[in-house]
């Protein structure tokens, strides 16, 4: 069963000015981060249970916490996976989803099974690539998109050379 109390507790502890403004010793700052991470774990279980109940199907839900550095083992290896986007705002939002993926072409379908436009962008400073698609998510609700790797196809290799500037 999930539990949000540990995260509540961690957030309560982190109201201390040292946590808010970073005026603590390193090991204290590290411990603040540890408390938050420890609190987030049971919350993931809570979120998974809520999503399973609301969507009507039990899943092995996976939370990728390092999307901001394009790391997500599931989306980078799976040939088919689903993406649930939860919108906490009290109004519908359109949100560009970016997920690190392997070098393939993907088909993205919306909750009604209709294919939506998607794109694969290669990160110039690395050979990683990201799948982009725009998700429409209801107010205080969620949408489930499915992503399927198109067998046998890989994105056209575009070699964009860096535009070196004259050094000034």
């Amino acid at each position, binding site marked *: 069963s999930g539990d949000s109390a540990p995260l509540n507790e961690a957030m309560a502890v982190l109201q201390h000015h040292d946590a808010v403004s970073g005026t603590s*010793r390193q090991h204290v700052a590290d411990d603040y981060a540890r408390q938050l991470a420890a609190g987030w774990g049971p919350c993931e279980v809570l979120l998974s249970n809520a999503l399973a109940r609301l969507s009507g199907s039990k899943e*092995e839900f996976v939370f990728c916490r390092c999307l901001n550095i394009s790391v997500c083992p599931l989306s980078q290896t799976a040939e088919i996976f689903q993406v649930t986007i939860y919108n906490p705002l009290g109004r519908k939002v359109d949100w560009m989803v970016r997920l690190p993926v392997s070098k393939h072409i993907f088909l993205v379908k919306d909750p009604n099974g209709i294919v939506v436009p998607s794109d694969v962008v290669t990160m110039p400073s690395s050979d990683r690539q990201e799948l982009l698609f725009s998700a429409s998510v209801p107010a205080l609700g969620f949408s489930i998109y499915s992503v399927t790797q198109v067998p046998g196809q890989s994105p056209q290799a575009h070699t964009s050379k860096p535009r070196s500037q004259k050094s000034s």
Partner: protein
Amino acid sequence: SRILTIQNEYIRARFDPETGLLVELENLDQNLLLPVRQAFYWYNASTGNNLSDQVSGAYIFRPNRQEPLLVSRWAQIHLVKKALVQEVHQNFSAWCSQVVRLYPGQRHLELEWTVGPIPVGDGWGKEIISRFDTELETKGLFFTDSNGREILERRRNYRPTWVLNMTEPVAGNYYPVNSRIYITDGKVQLTVLTDRSQGGSSLKDGSVELMVHRRLLRDDRRGVGEPLLENGSGLWVRGRHLVLLDKAQTAAVRHRLQAEKELLAPQVVLAQGSSTPYHPG
């Protein structure tokens, strides 16, 4: 081509093809064009001087001179133009890069910066800022929020509740920015939304700066007992600034709605897709 731009239905951003830096922002919808120069700078952290032996540290921001130094006056760039995104990847140095991004339908310019590890081999602590310079005549005023709820008017070298004797012309004009900072000349407003709390200011008319990272070598003797000197994953920071250009009278609705979307951003949860029914039968 000589013209380097990215755009969508609402926004066009132009870059100097010589330097790779952002030089102009255009709101196509409201027919606004504003020369905006954005670059990264660093303040040299004070280690005390003849006026005061106070050093820059976890509690105290105190640069050792008023003018910050440019991280780099040019960037190596990559241009990515696809149906769902247009991006300019800017590489300023080994420890400072940025992606300037526009998605279809987006009414703000997204600047995703990555800074670190800040080099301190020269023995100098450094405080890194992202600064936007425009021609807006802002008359010493700028605006910062308080916890995303209330906007406070700030006036350079001034306090509303006492006669200020300004002894720190930079740090004395820095204020907490929880979600946004903006400047306006009464007709046009330039707003920068943050994805976390940062220090910010407007030290010259038409200019806005936000501090994105610090790496210091001395303790500021205010109780921590060690310098602000991360040694692990805190060496790197990656974050985003959302830049909005609007008419002054319509700017509020734009930045308020966008800031809410930023603060309460959607959560993405993945699953392999081999589901079993939750409810029996």
